[in-house]
């Protein structure tokens, strides 16, 4: 049936293709194009129309996929690998105020690693991740399970629920700057001040609370992402195991822990780790809400690197920071990929 359909389609297209003189290599037996291009050998011309013909000559199978990925790989090399190599170069030189001067070996790294401000930023990132990501994960999972019940009007609710995640992070920051503005901010005045949590100042100006306010904003922004990703996963699960469980009279808790959770694990791991990595990179919201302050109490590595580059113009040390973060991320990515692929079959 399928082949018949295709045959008709192929026949219909033959004219058009002949006119268009389809570009690129072809492994159609014996066309003029093949001969003209000299790509094909007698092997392909002798290929009969049977199952074996579906296998193209080994030589072509070798280069065709590489041709397909070449543009992407080339682009990514230009925009990612070359900048990385350049950053390594910069990190090994005295580079201040945009002028790259002497080769100084690992000096930038030594300065950085003995700088308490660097370790402060790492600590802040770790606190941020350790609180924000698990909350987002749990809320997202619970939300997805609820959403997956017999909820009406999903086609309206889903885009609405998704709004915080799809807003520009800078707008999210702005939104919470407004909500939590000192004295007149809607939530500042009506909630925080009323319950004597803060005075008439913004929570983002409080050195003790600013980081937790940022975590709250991150949770607000990214819980919907987790929720919808998990919901999509739930929707895609096969029905068979659930029918079997229903026949066996399993209860909801048993079904969740013995069927849903194991089948959903690859997705949970991939989405959780992606969020983990993105939380480490948080920049936009912090930049507009606190700019790393008060003092350096919310200075994440991204904010610190940005300040080093564009405020202190200490490019050498900023590059050293970038290289360290980069290497850490790459190592992390590698482990993540190996686990996700080999153990969970998630890629």
């Amino acid at each position, binding site marked *: 049936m*399928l*082949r018949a359909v295709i045959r008709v389609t*192929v026949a219909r297209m033959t004219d058009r293709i002949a006119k268009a003189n389809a570009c690129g290599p*072809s492994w*159609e037996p014996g066309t003029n194009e093949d001969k003209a291009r000299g790509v094909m050998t007698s092997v392909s011309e002798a290929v009969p129309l049977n199952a074996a*013909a*579906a296998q193209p000559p080994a030589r072509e199978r070798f280069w*065709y*996929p590489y041709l397909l*990925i070449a543009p*992407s*790989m080339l682009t*990514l090399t230009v*925009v*990612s690998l*070359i*900048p990385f190599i*350049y950053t390594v170069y*910069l990190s090994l030189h005295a580079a201040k105020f*945009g002028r790259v001067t002497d080769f100084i070996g690992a000096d930038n790294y030594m300065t950085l690693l003995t700088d308490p401000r660097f370790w402060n930023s790492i600590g802040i990132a770790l606190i941020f991740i350790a609180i924000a990501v698990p909350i987002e994960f749990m809320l997202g999972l619970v939300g997805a399970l609820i959403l*997956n*019940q*017999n*909820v009406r009007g999903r086609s309206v*609710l*889903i*885009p609405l*629920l998704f*709004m915080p995640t*799809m*807003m*520009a992070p800078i*707008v999210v920051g702005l*939104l919470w700057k*407004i909500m939590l503005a000192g004295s*007149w901010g809607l939530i500042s*005045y009506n909630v925080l001040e009323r319950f004597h949590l803060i005075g008439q100042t913004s929570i983002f100006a409080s050195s003790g609370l600013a980081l937790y306010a940022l975590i709250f904003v991150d949770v*607000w922004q990214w819980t919907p992402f987790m929720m*919808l990703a998990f*919901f999509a996963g739930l929707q*895609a*699960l096969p029905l068979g195991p*659930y029918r079997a*469980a229903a026949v066996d009279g399993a209860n909801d808790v048993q079904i969740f822990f013995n069927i849903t959770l194991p089948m959903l694990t*690859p*997705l949970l791991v*991939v989405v959780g780790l*992606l969020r983990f990595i993105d939380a480490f990179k948080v*920049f*936009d919201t912090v930049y*507009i809400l606190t700019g790393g302050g008060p003092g350096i109490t919310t200075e994440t590595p*991204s904010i610190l690197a*940005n300040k080093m*580059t564009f405020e202190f113009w200490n490019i050498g040390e900023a590059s050293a*920071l*970038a*290289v360290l973060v980069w290497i850490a*991320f*790459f190592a992390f990515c590698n482990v993540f*990929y190996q686990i996700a692929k080999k153990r969970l079959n998630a890629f």
Partner: protein
Amino acid sequence: MPDETKKPTADRGLIWTAIVVVYAAIVLFPIFWMAAMMVMPDEAMFARPTVWLFTPTLEHFRYVLELGFSWNLFASFVLSVLSTGLVIVIGTPAAYAFARFDMKFKDDLFLFILATRMAPPVCLVIPFYLIFAKLSLLDTFTGLTLAYMTFNLSFYVWVLRSFCRDLPVEIEEAAALEGWSRVQIFRQMVFPLLRNGIVATAVLCFIFAWNEFLFAFMLGGEAVQTLPVSIPKLITSQGVRWGEMAVVGIAALLPVLTAVFVLQRHIVRGLTLGAVKG
């Protein structure tokens, strides 16, 4: 759990719906408040206690237009379309190849793509800034489009790959038997079948580009100033223009919200990042 496994009564469905609606109302309230601030006079905005009823004003819209935000909107749009278009053209064949063929070092190449997506933009902005300065690419659409490739091209290949894997290989084999060339198979068969996946992934890429701040802020300037970058401009020496910020913020949200409403099914599928075999 898929719906069909249980037979909840109508009441139960309504309770769940009510829970979700209440949750949504609480979580989204700040956004509605920001929308209200677009037409809120300044006196009402800064009042203590909070003023809930006020006479709407169009003052903020007027100010925003006077500052030339239509150009920011245009720049955002051009940049997002350019970078997304380029990603589709060069990313689609790569996603297909990663899903369909065996390659030497395939795992390593794919890891390279993943690593590019994971790399913190703030690390890339330093070399980009210095290289772009040398090549006079600062404050140009070309430069920013290139910079956006780092997160969008890698994300696109990653996610579209899972859509490609869902295509039935039999149909391609049948076409090959009929003597179709590989280019024909790709253009006439794979590409149309993949359209939903491409739309879903491309919309996510468009949203990322539309919302991007760091690159646009550091590598852009006066000529190419996107909507997110224009927001800090409203912190003036005479004070912060909150109402105007609300207008720009909502304006930045609307196109994305529309896209998600129209294409929600595809987008939700794209969010599983290839970790679910659909």
